[in-house]
Structure formats: structure tokens, C-alpha cells
């Protein structure tokens, strides 16, 4: 799961997709996850990193991460090439 490399993400959570011209706002934990995805981390590595720094259990995080990635897919923010490989 990798995000589209063209995305511009600001520190304040503003996200711009130059291919579509669409803008988004993402909360801090969402931005952190996007950054980890950009670095090419696997889902397990992302979970581990979030659980290390946030008060959350793995089941809740797994549910929310799945939901988050579905929303990213819906907005076409995931890497198309990676997506077709899957």
C-alpha cells in the first residue's frame, strides 16, 4: 500500500493532488500514516509504529487503518501501479 508520489502534504495536514486538482485535509495521525506509507512501510510496520506512540489497541487500529485506506482508494490517492499489482 503506497500513496501516489505526486501528492503534496503540508505539515498542517493540507493535501493537494496535482493530477486531479483536488485538495484534502487530513488529521495529524492520518498525516503520520501517509508519511509512513510514502516511506514504503508495510501495514504491519505502520501498525507497530502507531501503537508505539498512541493509546490504541491493535484491533481498533486495524479496523481504522482498513477504513482509512478504503477512503484513500476512493479518492484515488493510492499509487495506481501498486494498486494494479494487487
Amino acid at each position: 500500500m503506497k500513496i501516489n508520489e505526486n501528492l503534496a502534504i503540508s505539515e498542517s495536514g493540507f493535501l493537494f493532488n496535482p493530477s486531479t486538482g483536488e485538495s484534502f485535509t487530513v488529521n495529524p495521525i492520518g498525516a503520520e500514516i501517509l508519511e509512513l506509507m510514502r516511506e514504503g512501510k508495510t501495514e504491519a510496520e505502520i501498525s507497530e509504529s502507531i501503537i508505539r506512540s498512541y493509546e490504541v489497541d491493535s484491533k481498533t487500529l486495524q479496523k481504522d487503518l482498513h477504513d482509512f485506506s478504503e477512503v484513500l482508494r476512493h479518492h484515488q490517492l493510492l499509487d495506481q501501479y501498486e494498486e494494479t499489482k494487487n
Partner: protein
Amino acid sequence: MEKKIYERPHIVKLDTGMPGKFGMRNDAPPTTHIDGVSVKELVDKFGSPLFVISEHTIRSTYHKAYKAFSTRYPKVQFAWSYKTNYLPAVCNVFHQEGSWAEVVSGFEYDKALANGVDPGKIIFNGPGKSSAELKKAAENGSLIHIDHLDELYMLTDLAGDMKRKPLVAIRVNMDTGIYPMWDRFGFNYENGQAWDALNKIMLSGKLELAGLHTHIGTFILGANAYGVAASKLADLALGLQQKFNHTIRYIDMGGGFASKNTLKGSYLPGADTNPTFDDYAEAITTALVNSGFKPENLPMLILETGRALIDEAGYIITSILANKRLSTGRRATIIDAGVNLLFTAFWYQHPVTPAQGFSQYREENTIYGPLCMNIDCVRESINLPLLNKGDKLVIHYTGAYNLTQWMQFITLRPNVVMIDPDGMVHLIRQNESIDTVCTPENTPQYLQGVK
């Protein structure tokens, strides 16, 4: 290292349309305390869901309403509408403030007596009074508001055997310029039914006509309708004076004042747009003082407003059971209080606030209750923070009708507490157990012990 508070990851597309005149803030400040008592502590002690009544809010709302009328009219009397909320603790706050009781059934009548209300200060309304109930109320000297001719004849018959004349008023329905016109209660003004009933009462000689009553509708958003109604009742009263030289003691304007709740389909919040007590008081008292009553004969003005006096004093604290997405991708939140407890969710967009602080991120939600019924929807659309399972919400303006129209349906009803003005919490109705439901049930012998 201390871990950070978790909030689920959230991304939303920015979609800025043209600003509209109905643009509103969509953030809801958290309700962490009710009357200084922590919501978390209330839930820890009394469970979730939990009804909470603020005694301070009841009293201050009553004072506002009383002041609005008493500064404009010399003789004002409120009568607490039992059907709106007949928990004894709630009724007795109103009775302590000076309210009479307004009841609409034998059951409510007995509740008022059990609360210690002087029978002479009980108004008995309603279309379904039995002969035994009428007899009891009449002998006790309560004020009986006659709804139809069958009741008038029944009471006239009963009066023959009584030592005291029953004290009565008639209920009058009328066109006040609003839609819908409620014509199911009482006798119509425009077609002459009301005047006919008054003549029958006066000529029977068996009943003592004490007043005139109307109940023009519910959640009336135009205060002027009450002015029209008061003028028409005054007209009937002056007719009685002229024809029979009979002076009535009171005019009862019934209930129907809107609370601060927002009706479904409204653009703006009810708290900002609904008429105030001053608006209603101005319309009613202006009509009465400008009518033909001589100053010494001004009748007492009785008000049976229920909803507007209690809605804001009621809260439901509820817990998030789950959040999920619907087929459209829309966020849905499931809470442990449904329409079984919140009957008024069918009419209102109740304000809902989180009971704990959150970040500024919001998501549009549909809030469902816990019932396995498709109709169990508390809010079709509301912006809420990113809630997690177990988080608490506070539903506002729930004091009217929910504690009388709630249903023992699918699940049991929860505790109800009242917070007194000193911040002490009192359990005023115990939560139900399976015995509450099963004790009155009876299973025939041959159907017992089915395996």
C-alpha cells in the same frame, strides 16, 4: 514516554461551495459536565444510557415563564402538564414553584393526588374520562374540563346525586389562523358548538361553570395564534356575562408553546428562532386586557405549558457502541440510546455533543440507536468529532415527553437521575430489570417449561 491520545485517521476532501445565508458553525463544544457534575462520574455510578434532569434548569425556566406573564397580567397560574413528564420528583419541583396539576386521565389524576396536590388545584382535561373518574374528580372539587356533549350529559346525570356542584369548564377548539387546526378537543367556536354547550351548562343548573379552556395545538411557532384564541375565549366569556350575568373565574390557554428544540426540516436552530415566553405572553395578555372585561372582572389566566418548561432540563448520556460505514461510504455511529428512550427523535433534530474533548476534525454521521429496527435513527445527519467505541455523547433537550412516551421495547429502561441546585445527584427512577417486565406476565400451565 507517555503515549498520545488516539484519534482515528481521517481525511476529507475540501469542497468549498458558495457561502450561504444559512451557514452555521458545525462544531459542538463538549459537554463534560451537567450542572457541575462530571458526565463520566454520572455514567460510572449510574450506567449508560442515563437520563439526567437538571432541577436548576427547571426552576430557572419556570421563573422566566412566570415572569413573562406576571409582569403583563395580574392573575397568572401555571398548571403542570403531567403527560409531559410525570415523574414525581419533576412534578413536585413545579408544585413547589406554585404550579397546579393538569391531568388527562384517571391514572394521572391519582398520580397528582399521590404527589399531595390539593384536589381543588387539579385540572382534569382529556377526551376519555370514565364515569367513576368524573365522579371522583367532581366530589373532590377538581376542575373538570368537558370535552364533548356525551361527557357533559354524563356529568350532569352524576351531578344529581352530589352534594356539591361539579366545577367545570368547556374545552373550545377554533380557527386561530394556523395549520393544522386542532378540532378534536372540545367544542368548536366558529360553528356555535361552544356557545351551545355553555348554554346547556348554564340552563341545567347542575354544574358550576368556572372557566373556559382551549388547546390550539402543539409546538406553535406563531405566537399571534394565541392572541386570536384568547380573543375568542374572551368573546365567549363576555357573552356569558351579558346573557346570564355569570362571571367566569379563569381562562385556560392550554399548552403548545415551542421549546428550544429544532423541528426536522428547519433551516435554523429552534433555540434562535422559536418564539420566547415573552412573545407568547405578549400575544395572550394583550388580547385579554384589550377585550371587554372590566378591570375588576379580569379572569385568572391559566397556562398548561409543558414542553417549553421541561425540554431544556433533560439530557440523555449515551455511549458509542460502534461506528461503521454504510453502503454509500457514509459514516454511521451506533449508540446505546434509541427511539425507545428518545421518542422525540421522530420530530426533532436533538442537539448532540461529545462528552469529552476532541480535535477540530469532524465527520458527517448518521446516529442509530441499538434497536434491531430500521426506524431506530436518532439523527439522520450530524457533524461529530472522530468518535471511538466507548466514547460518550450527551443528547440535549430531552426532558419533555420522553419519560412518559418511552417504550419498554426490545430492551429495558435505564436509570433517571436529578441533579439538585447544590449539585447533589438523586436517583429518581430505578432502572428496570427483567422482573419489571416479567412479573405481571402469566403463562398457562400447559405452556410452561417448554424445552
